[in-house]
């Protein structure tokens, strides 16, 4: 299982999450987003970039609350909330945005 990217196959798991996080790059993110039927715009990039920065520091995706607060700071309160995140990532901000950001799927009771 993999994404065909520049002539190489990049492995992903059964649900499209990258197997090797270091395979990620912005062009690949566009391809993952496309397979999720999402077009990457500035707001979605803002989320994806935040997730990647957070992951680099904490080795895990941020709590949804942490993400919304960060977005409220950069994009204003009308966009820094859960409803808006669901508009950006209809399948759920945590899982769908993580997939596009090349991070592992959040597991557990979420």
């Amino acid at each position, binding site marked *: 299982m993999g994404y065909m990217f520049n002539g190489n196959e990049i492995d992903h798991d059964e649900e499209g999450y990258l197997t090797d996080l270091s395979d990620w790059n912005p062009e690949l993110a566009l391809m993952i987003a496309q397979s999720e039927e999402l077009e990457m715009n500035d707001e979605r990039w803002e989320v994806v970039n935040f997730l990647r920065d957070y992951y680099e520091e904490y*080795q895990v995706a941020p709590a*949804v609350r942490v993400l919304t607060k960060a977005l409220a700071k950069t994009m204003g309160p009308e966009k820094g909330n*859960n409803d808006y995140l669901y508009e950006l990532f209809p399948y759920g901000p945590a899982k769908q945005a993580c997939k596009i950001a090349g991070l592992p799927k959040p597991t557990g009771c979420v």
Partner: protein
Amino acid sequence: MAKVSDFIVDDSDTDPLAIPKLACGSMRDSKPFVAKDAHQAALGYPGELVDDWQDKAISKMGELLTKYRSLQVYMDSCVKCGACTDKCHYFLGTGDPKNMPVGRQDLMRKVYRRYFTFAGKYMPWLVGAEDLTEDVLDEWYTYYHQCSQCRRCSVYCPFGIDTAEVSMAAREIMDSVGKGQKYCNEIIGKVYKVGNNLGLPAKAIRSTLDGLEEELQEDTGLDIKMPLDQKGVDVLLVTPSADLFAEPHIDGLMGYAKVFHEAGVTWTLSSYASEAANFGMFIGSYENMREVSLRIRKAAEDLQVKRIVFGECGHAWRVAYSFLNTLAGPFDFLDQRYPIPQHICEFTYDMIENGELRFDKSKNDQYRLTYHDSCNVARGSRMGNKPGGQFEIPREILRASCNHFYDMAPDTIKEATLCCGGGGGILTDDLMDVRLKGAQPRMRAMQEVAEEHGVTHLAAICAICKAQFSKVLPAYGFKVNSILSVHQMVSNAIVLTGSIQEKELDEAKTPEAAE
């Protein structure tokens, strides 16, 4: 894999318990991803189906029949009376007869008869006995992962046959021969490696808690602490890691913090035991359930606490209430004057009873609320010191904190409660069709109170229920955020001593309105 957006609600009926037309084999293709080598190895199971899997599986079944007498009784005592046939939410939602509890049990019963009964050994055709073939194993994998182990069927069975235990045994047998479920086993592995289901390291937990402390400060004007790994405090709070990650779970966590603050009780979370959930139960593994439980004991000892309190987590409370002492006891080092362990709802309710908490219910006036009894709390445990405490205590907390509360139909709540559709290891995206269909009875019951009483929101005390509902509610015409934590309602309405809310209330209102 089914997507939520592809799902079409069956609106042919509005009765939550309407018996569907039979749809034989309709769910035969819905099965979860199989665990990989690494997931299996962390739990001590073979990485793939072993060569002599059939002999091993039969031998494991023999072992379980001896170890758990209940399993033997369940295999022997079904008289096919039919009382259970329309009691499973997955049958009601799918119409697949193998999701009738008796149908599900019979998948194991036919194998049991073949290898463990006289008639089945010599005249299998007479007694419906069957060999354990690869097809049968596949069927087990499919249908024992369409059971949320909610035990609703056992309430109606005249013999008390508990399909949950049969499902647990089946999963244990499958794990032992190398056919495990990815979702549960990967998660248990994370608990061993990092301390919780989500894999949140201590640094991430601390950072999240810092943010929440700030939020509490802004909200109340008080310095409300959310400690991690603090030694020598009164209470170790063991809560699902989803409380540190997801919505609306995290609002519940802030509610616990406010209650502890008002109680003047010192408390801490533990990064080592940063998980209340115990998926060892879902896979029927005593050993794994014990491993997870022992982490809680170790954390309590290391942090030298006096009490253990569990947060809002359904099956965690079943394991805690019913099995913790056996798995990880005796807890003779804890303060024996308090329940060991105690549920956060018991803690809050005691304070309400003693008149120690003040609420401004109008803060929750935007909600017209109903309550979803989570199955493992309802049918696998109790709260307080009265029968039915697990039903009444959460409702009393909600009545104390909001003005508009309405129960759903009596045959869908309390001991008859309908599962959310995501319990018992089913809360995984690869089983989305099972989850959406299994939620149908509960969602119809909610639609009834929405119509009759204008109910807009549903509160629950289980991390799985909360996550499942936030996924399935939109498919049934509700908003994604129509699911709330019980302690979120507490958090919204509580008037803490010295807080901004207290000042506002005392300035604005007469004393009787402030009650």
